């Protein structure tokens, strides 16, 4: 398997300086104003939860709901890890917004040619060996980036060795595993993290989609069979009817003709 990149966010280390937000806005050329929630011009935000700071961004699921939902394949899980968005394919159906278990993607509701906006983990920067802008800007090491297996090991080491951490790595199981992990000294549900399903989201619709060939084959065969029986019955009725008087049907009602 190819190694993929992942980000680890240590909530205990975040001081809420919002350097990540600003770096993200710089990289994308967005207006500098701080925003409270994710928006088309704020692809990562630091939200205050009590005395804690929780950074929100795309989780870059291993098996992404949005990528399976997107009917034109504009959203893709790339081999390096980031889930990217190809605006030139998007038709604006917004099924990705509906499908995302973390409610991350944003839509440009105010624009006349609106696109979906979400963090792409600085896929282009990472492809050329650079760290994502937000991670590079983090002064405390609250956000770090690395190979996913190593990052996950690091998170496990921290959570197991230091008793202050809640005994869960958010993202290790959520939605079947993500490429952004959170560790925290406060239970995640108290920080407003959603209890996402612990399974790859596309599996939820894969079963039904897998039924397509069956429905086509069995349904087609069944219907053809029924038609054959109907025809046969008509033929028999016709043959028997020939002996008796023929009664013409009301042609006015009989639009489809014979």
């Amino acid at each position, binding site marked *: 398997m190819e190694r993929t990149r992942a980000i680890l966010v240590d909530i205990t280390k975040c001081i809420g300086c919002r350097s990540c937000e600003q770096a993200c806005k710089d990289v994308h050329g967005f207006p500098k104003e701080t925003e409270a929630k994710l928006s088309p011009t704020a692809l990562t935000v630091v939200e205050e939860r009590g005395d804690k700071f929780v950074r929100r961004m795309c989780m870059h699921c291993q098996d992404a709901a949005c990528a399976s939902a997107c009917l034109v394949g504009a959203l893709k899980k790339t081999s390096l890890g980031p889930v990217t968005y190809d605006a030139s394919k*998007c038709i604006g159906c*917004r099924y990705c*917004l509906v499908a995302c278990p973390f409610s991350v993607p944003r839509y440009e509701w105010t624009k*006349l040619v609106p696109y979906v906006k979400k963090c792409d983990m600085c896929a282009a920067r990472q492809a050329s060996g650079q760290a994502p802008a937000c991670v590079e800007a983090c002064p405390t090491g609250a956000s770090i980036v690395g190979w996913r297996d190593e990052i996950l090991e690091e998170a496990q080491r921290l959570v197991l060795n230091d008793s202050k951490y809640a005994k869960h790595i958010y993202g290790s199981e959520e939605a079947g595993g993500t490429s952004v992990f959170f560790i925290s000294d406060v239970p995640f549900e108290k920080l407003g993290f959603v209890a996402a*399903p612990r399974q790859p989201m596309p599996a939820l619709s894969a079963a039904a989609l897998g039924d397509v060939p069956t429905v086509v084959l069995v349904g087609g065969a069944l*219907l053809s069979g029924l*038609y054959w029986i*109907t025809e046969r019955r008509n033929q028999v009725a016709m043959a028997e009817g020939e002996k008796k008087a023929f009664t013409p049907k009301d042609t006015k009602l009989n*639009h*489809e003709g014979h």
Partner: protein
Amino acid sequence: MAGIRVPRITLWRVIVAVILAAGLYATYARFALGFSQATHLTDPQPWGLWVGLGTLCGVGLSAGGFGIAAAVYLLGFERYRPVLRTAVLVSFLGYMSVMAGMMYELGLPWRIWHPIVMWNRSSMLFEVSWCVMLYSTVLALEFSPALVEKIPWVGLRTCYLKQQHRILIGLVLVGCVLSSLHQSFLGGLYLLTKGKLDPLWYTPYLTTLFYLSAIPAGLAVTVMALYLCVRSLNVRLDTKILSELSRVIAPMLALYGILRGVDLVTHGAIPYLFRWREETLSFWLEIGLFVVGPLVLLSLERVQNNPQYLHWTCSLVVMGFMANRLNVSITGLQTSSGVYYVPKWTEFAATLMVLTAVVMAFRYAVKYLDILPKNAGVRS
């Protein structure tokens, strides 16, 4: 002398004019001002009335065509043949309205053709879009003789009708399979909302439930359309057929009700049935309108044999069906989204305009094409 004929001002014409004006403003708002001016859609509630009513109900309520076509052509129930064209016409216009609605609903509607060349086989919506495209074509071909037979050139007409007749059974068969697929896959769209959609509606069997509810709802629409034709378009039709159709609707609703109940029990949604909250009230409203009310009414002999009562009962079924689709697409997602979505008036206006266009197109089709036999001495 041939002066300009001023159309008589009637209540209905005024209503249509108001809807048209409002709809045109909504169209302007949507395309010249954008979603934020034309809708109350937000990131937590990205699909609203246009999807819930326009698409989910539009497609679902157009299921009558494939049901009746299957009954007549594949099962040989000749007694439904007199209403076949009406059912196919309603479905065809229904799908046209869905396509028109898509123009409002999609952010980049000029790219509506993208799914034809850009494929994602793991997307439920991809399958839906292909099925809807193909099935609309099937419906157009199924309905085409009604238009073609009005062509004055005999040669062309007979040639087309002959060719159409040759492929008709194939069309009906393909239509049934396509309908079965996309009617259920519309429910399948919401399989990905696990954890977001309220337990009263989320189930792995959303596909089955969407399919099983669409057929009786589609038939109910057919009954309503037929009744209205008889009442106001001077159509000659033995209204016994309405009773017959209703006799099919009742067991389908019962089956749906039973499966819905079993499903709720098996996935442990029972506690949610008795909580004092908006979702639960909407749920009971839906069940009352779609299952309980119609089943009680259809069991009464007085209703069974009265076209007008049947019409009202079927309108209950349709309302209940719409309640279900809106519950899945809006009410059931309210709590998890954290926003209370109420559609903007322009959303209603656009949807109403499309619906009005469908009703008017239906009216003209029944008037000028051979959809249903007419009584002698029709004024046109």
